[in-house]
């Protein structure tokens, strides 16, 4: 409940801010531009960047979605989407960033993120490389991040469209009416098999999405984002729904899991956890899939 109302307030502020900025962009050229990034650092740009380096797969996907493919001059080794990214020069790992490699590509903007860490971002700035950091740890922060990138690269319209889609996908998750008030308990089961079961807790997109759906994540609010929980606790909580990247048959074969209400009632659903762990535009599709899944559950 709390997190939902927070998001609404934030996105409200955002759209207000955006209208203002769009108005500005229409009347005057936005450059020279001064923007505060999501680490709270300020960056000044005199013209739209032409040589952009992306510091994470999520950043790469945002840049592509904003139609900036031609301006990307470097991506990390982990960037694998969209397929056009194959031809882009590589800068190596997300962390630690190979600063010399980054500099050698002569970027006029490094789009960094929380995964790169604060120190490398500072170091790049100290070396005179314009660096802008995103910190998309929630849907609201992701929407803000997309709009910031839009402002930085003079692609506000595309950014606004993406954010509108994201907000629509989030809104579609909200339950149609206030039901009896009892929230179905859901287990998010991540991992390759049950001997290595992980779950997504507070601070993950999966937890946030499941909460928006009006479900109760039994791995949420336990003080971790990705963690392992006790099997006995799962049995005691007895979730009515399981969202997993494993084959649902695995749960039916396990002597413990097959006792759960979720497994007995065939309420084990396969989801793509990867798309939920990457803060980028594909979360919109992932959210839409989740909304569809809700229809199946309610049947």
């Amino acid at each position, binding site marked *: 409940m709390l997190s939902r109302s927070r998001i609404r307030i934030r996105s409200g502020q955002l759209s207000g801010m955006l209208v203002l900025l769009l108005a500005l962009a229409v009347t005057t050229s936005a450059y020279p531009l001064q923007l505060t990034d999501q680490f709270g650092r300020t960056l000044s740009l005199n013209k739209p960047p032409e040589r952009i380096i992306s510091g994470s797969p999520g950043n790469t996907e945002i840049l592509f979605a904003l139609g900036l493919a031609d301006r990307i001059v470097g991506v990390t080794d982990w960037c694998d989407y969209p397929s056009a990214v194959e031809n882009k020069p590589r800068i190596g*790992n*997300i*962390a630690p960033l190979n600063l010399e490699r980054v500099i050698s590509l002569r970027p006029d903007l490094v789009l960094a993120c929380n995964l790169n860490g604060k120190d490398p971002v500072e170091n790049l700035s100290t070396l005179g490389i314009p660096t802008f950091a995103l910190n998309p740890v929630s849907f609201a922060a992701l929407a803000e991040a997309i709009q910031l990138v839009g402002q930085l690269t003079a692609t506000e319209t595309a950014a606004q469209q993406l954010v509108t889609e994201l907000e629509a996908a989030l809104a579609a998750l909200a339950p149609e009416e206030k039901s009896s008030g009892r929230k179905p308990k859901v287990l998010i089961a991540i991992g*390759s*098999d049950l*001997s*290595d079961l*992980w779950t997504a807790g507070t601070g993950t997109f999966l937890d946030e999405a499941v909460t928006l759906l009006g479900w109760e994540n039994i791995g949420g609010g*336990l*003080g*971790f984002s*990705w*963690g*392992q*929980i*006790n*099997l*006995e*606790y*799962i*049995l*005691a*909580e007895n979730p009515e729904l399981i969202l997993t990247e494993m084959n649902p048959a695995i749960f039916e074969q396990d*002597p*413990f899991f097959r*006792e759960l209400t979720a497994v007995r009632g065939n309420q084990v659903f396969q989801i793509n956890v990867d798309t939920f762990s990457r803060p980028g535009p594909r979360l919109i599709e992932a959210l839409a899939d989740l909304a569809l899944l809700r229809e199946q559950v309610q049947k």
Partner: protein
Amino acid sequence: MVGLSLGLVVAAVVALCLGPVQLKVPLDPLQRKVLLDLRLPRVILAVMVGAALAVTGVLFQGLFRNPLADPYVLGTSSGAALGATIAVLSNASLHLGGLSARPLCAFAGAILATALVYGLGRMGNRSAPTIMLLAGIAVSAFFSALTSLLLYFRQEEMAKIVFWMMGGFSYARWAEVKMILPYLLVAFLLSRSFARQLNLLLLGEDKAHQLGLEVAVFQRRVVFTASILVAAAVSVSGSIGFIGMVAPHLVRLFIGPDHRYLIPASALAGGLLLLVADSLARTVLSPVELPVGVLTSLIGGPFFLYLLKKSRRALH
């Protein structure tokens, strides 16, 4: 010894009653399952692994006549970690006797590392233990570096491996108990049969030799037995520090250095310590499980220092 056995029984009963699922007599089928198929194998496995680590500690401390020797000096744990890492990274779908690839590869890695150290240690005859200790450190460092190298290129799997390396029993089932039981039984019996020779070694290698002990042969046997114990322990629980070092020292404070009593008493003490640690690990932050290896070192470290300060002489 009687006290330890009693303590173990009490701790086991308490551990069986603790957990998120409340047990009420008469037990419903779920409660029965939780008690018999989750908590019981976990309690048994924790005791078995604790005992194995403690006995290994006794064997190594006796063999190397070095109070710092513990189950990991022979590179066993880093070998196991490498094996587990390879299993996870290659997504191996190997299954044997109800066990998945990770414990099996960990076991293989542990044996491989120990065999390597043992092979290198054979170069000398009289100074074999020293060479073996040094070889153990080198092999350890090498295998750890290989593990780090593999992980560096597959950072998304890092959490899995790191958590596994911290040790724990969150997936303890009867299959794990069955797998290591035969190895542990044989190794325990062998260890007990070493008691007399280990006592001779307390007098020094030369004395022991004069008294008719074939030191080099005996050393090999002990190393072999100990590595089976560690490999079995590591394969089901990851690496758990401090039990192997602390348990024997604790017991020695109370009953002295005679290996005939030291070995079984250390086994009991190690089992008890690890059972208590694991029960804490799964209950203090429930439902989040703490890695038991972190807990043993967190509690074991300061406790050991306290003992060390209190009775410096007794530890020699």
